[in-house]
């Protein structure tokens, strides 16, 4: 409907300018995942708006970067040689060995995220995590057990800013108490936002993928809450994991 597309266009315009927040950002995620892929009009609109957004960079005055910048980039390129160069799947396979390093960091468990469909295998999500870790600037964050939480249950967070995704991995996550579930929170100066309930697999190995603008948050907290709708504030009792993003 025209009205719907007007609204969608508004969201897409804000999206390409990176100026959405809160409910609008969530709506953009939903539209991009559920509507745009099947709507030729919106795909074309998104491409055109993205082209405008790219060209808007030219509104800023060009400035010569320091002469040291290109050599620095060359050094960075040389420091991390690429393994093979077949894009995507091949490249992902090429870095599979890195999985060992990730597990060694403190655990691998992908937590089930908002849009991780049943059809996606854990292996697929694990490969996405590895791919995210290869992104320039990607830094794994330790999400550490707090207080009485089993110390061997440490988790690792990896975010990929370019695709607005966050991943969490843990090798061992204890089963939540009966009637309770783990809740993922992201925090900033405005407080804590409940992001979603973490699915706990029987083997305790959790893999989590979330579509979220990680740059909006500073901290991550996983708490045990009563199963069901999230409370307004994180529970400060019981097992929990905390990390600074």
């Amino acid at each position: 409907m025209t009205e719907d597309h007007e609204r969608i266009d508004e969201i897409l315009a804000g999206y390409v300018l990176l100026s959405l927040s809160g409910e609008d950002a969530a709506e953009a995620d939903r539209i991009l995942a559920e509507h745009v892929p099947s709507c030729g009009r919106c795909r074309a609109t998104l491409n055109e708006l993205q082209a405008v957004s790219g060209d808007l960079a030219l509104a800023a005055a060009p400035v010569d970067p320091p002469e040291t910048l290109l050599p620095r980039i060359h050094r960075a390129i040389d420091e991390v040689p690429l393994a093979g160069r077949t894009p995507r799947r091949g490249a992902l396979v090429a870095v599979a060995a890195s999985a060992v390093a990730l597990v060694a960091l403190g655990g691998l468990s992908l937590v089930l995220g908002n849009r991780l469909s049943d059809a996606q295998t854990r292996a697929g999500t694990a490969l996405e995590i590895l791919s995210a870790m290869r992104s320039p600037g990607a830094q794994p964050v330790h999400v550490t057990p707090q207080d009485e939480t089993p110390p061997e249950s440490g988790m690792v967070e990896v975010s990929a800013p370019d695709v607005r995704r966050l991943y969490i991995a843990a090798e061992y996550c204890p089963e939540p108490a009966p009637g309770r579930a783990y809740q993922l929170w992201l925090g900033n100066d405005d407080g804590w936002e409940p992001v979603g309930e973490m699915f706990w697999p029987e083997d305790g190995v959790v893999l989590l993928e979330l579509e979220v603008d990680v740059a909006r948050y500073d901290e991550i907290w996983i708490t045990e809450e009563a199963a069901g709708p999230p409370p307004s504030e994180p529970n400060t009792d019981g097992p929990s994991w905390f990390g600074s993003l």
Partner: protein
Amino acid sequence: MGEDDRHDIELHRLVSARERSAFDELYRRYARSAYGVALRVTSQDLIAQEVVQDAFLALWRAPEAFDPTRGAFRSFFLSLVHHRAVDAVRREERLRRRTERAANLEPATGEDPAEDVVEDAYLRVRRKEVRAALTTLPPAQQQVLEMAYLDGKTQARIAEELGIPIGTVKTRTLAAMRKLREALREE
């Protein structure tokens, strides 16, 4: 698609084949524009350098992220730089607020050394087109666009600072983007 866009695509193809000279050529073509927008958004030269470095490294390490069927390389790459710059400035801003340090950042220097910077003719032409298109926008639309794009502010914050409903910010933003789309449309 113009000759320069096709040349970019060829350079990108060579970068995908790990041709360092093609990478350097893309750097030569876009580093000034990239650094210009990164500096404008972040207002800090060290952060702007990191932003540009990360963007070029991303290009080298994952060239497949650019899909030539979806538009010009120029738009793709400068969007990537802008995205990283906005992320950087928001992280910095939150960090500053959280640690309650006094803000001591100089605003964007405001200089416009465009005339002193040597850049490819087609970029100079496109830059003039973009700036000319911006001047055709009503001031209110220009304002929200600049606050969003160059200052990295969210629509909610723009609404708060201007004292207008967020719906108005959205309407002005879309109207501005549509006008620019028409003005800058490339065959």
